[in-house]
């Protein structure tokens, strides 16, 4: 997923109401008025949030004129998921290298070298 698209997705996810809307839509598609019910909000306000979510590709709206059901689009979430996995991998490897390097440094610089135990501690 391109960076700018991902930024739009993250911006859409930044709002707690929009996250709550997505959490509701994860249970199944629904109408705007049904969606608005648990929130203390006007329909136009909810529609505004839905537009942001739709632009970010996080939801899709049905084409039926009256009842335009909203449903969650998993692809955009998958993009976030992939991105997070990438980030996690980068940092885990980075901190693994730091861990090794710190042990080297300490072995070299440490005034009283401690017993070094490689690997994970129990």
């Amino acid at each position, binding site marked *: 997923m391109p960076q700018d698209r991902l930024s739009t997705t993250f911006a859409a996810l930044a709002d707690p109401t929009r996250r709550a809307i997505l959490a509701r839509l994860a249970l199944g598609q629904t109408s705007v008025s049904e969606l608005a019910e648990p929130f203390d909000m006007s329909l136009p306000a909810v529609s505004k949030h839905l537009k942001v979510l739709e632009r970010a590709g996080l939801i899709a709206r049905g084409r039926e004129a009256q009842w335009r059901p909203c449903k969650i689009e998993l692809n955009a979430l998958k993009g976030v998921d992939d991105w997070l996995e990438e980030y996690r991998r980068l940092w885990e490897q980075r901190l693994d*290298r*730091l*861990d090794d390097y710190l042990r080297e440094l300490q072995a070299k610089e440490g005034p009283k070298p401690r017993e070094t135990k490689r690997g994970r501690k129990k």
Partner: protein
Amino acid sequence: MGVKNNIDLDGDPRVIVGVRDFDVPRELVFEAWTDPKHLAQWWGPDGFAITTHPFDMRPKGIWRFVMHGPDGRDYENRITFDEIVKPERIAYRHGGGDDVEPVQFRTPVTFEDIGGRTRARHQGIRRGQGLGADPLSSRPICSRIGGLNFMCL
């Protein structure tokens, strides 16, 4: 047990929080995280070599470095240190400017002394897009959606 090592989204999906324990005193961890000659040894990513420029270790100090990728490409990087409180915490920004890679992250890192060892907490906060009212305190609604089990909405 006793060793912490995890990275996950916080309540705000643009904030990623990571915790890692190191088996050395925090002065050493702090030094390794703030001296370019040390940084070049572990920054990575895997398979990348780094050419680093020296920099002043003070607030607003800028660390410029080039990551030489395994694909033969060079990646220009810039990190600006916003905060340096030895040996407790630092905060830096990655990116900024057209001449560097499009990375837009703010990263506070804290170093906690846990009985001679060190617990480092690092956050990755995506920049731009105007943060909401108070994203850090917003309560996460964790859902399992379409098998994305760590997606925290």
